[in-house]
């Protein structure tokens, strides 16, 4: 029984650290900014989730103490990682829009246009009757 627990905890910890490393390797290797967002936001979040799960099991099954911090950390990270990725993508779109930088060649090509004649919602003028418009002026 102890052997199985050891194997499961070690596998979770190694899987988590491996995914964290793959995420950072993707951040270094991928050619354009929009693609570099993929590595950290997906692989690193998954890796940290596995690591925290391994930590919960380790403290519960090996040391006999219950610690709920890991669950809070993983819940918070899983909620916030997409939001910060969205904000970073918006920053990048804005800096492309204002001509502050030029996009290098990427694997997938430029991101597809939004439908019809419109542009990204983040470039739209703020509406007068909305109290907190987040569009750029």
């Amino acid at each position, binding site marked *: 029984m102890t052997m199985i627990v*050891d*194997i499961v*905890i*070690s596998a979770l*910890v*190694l899987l*988590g*650290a*491996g995914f*964290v*490393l793959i*995420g*950072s*390797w993707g*951040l*270094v290797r991928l050619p354009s*900014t929009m693609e*570099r*967002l993929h*590595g*950290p936001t997906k692989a*690193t*979040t998954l*890796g*940290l989730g596995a*690591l*925290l799960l*391994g*930590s919960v099991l*380790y*403290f519960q099954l*090996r*040391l006999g*103490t219950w*610690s709920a*911090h*890991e669950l*809070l*950390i993983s819940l*918070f*990270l899983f909620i*916030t*990682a997409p*939001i*910060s990725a969205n*904000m*970073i*993508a*918006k*920053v*990048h779109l*804005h*800096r492309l829009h204002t001509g*502050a*930088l030029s996009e290098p060649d990427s694997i997938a090509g430029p991101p597809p246009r939004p439908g019809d004649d419109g542009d990204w919602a983040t470039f739209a003028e703020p509406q007068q009757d909305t109290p907190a418009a987040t569009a*750029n002026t």
Partner: protein
Amino acid sequence: MIAWALNIASVAVALALLLNGWRLLKGPALGDRIVALDTMVINVIALIVLIGMIGGNDTYFEAALLLAMVGFVSTIAYCKFILRGDIVE
């Protein structure tokens, strides 16, 4: 076995931090640097959890929880500052 796994994982996470630091220094776009900083915060959380597991002590996990919150808020504040030139309007 767990001790070996924890050591290997610590080395892997430290290597990931170095790779993030390389991207933070090199850029070239501002978005890359923000992504690198955000990922560094997540990797530091992983490192704190590993240190807590090696020491068999969960006191450090409160620091990891605080770092998760502060890292998210700082990333959003930086992005808002670039988007709007202001953080709290």
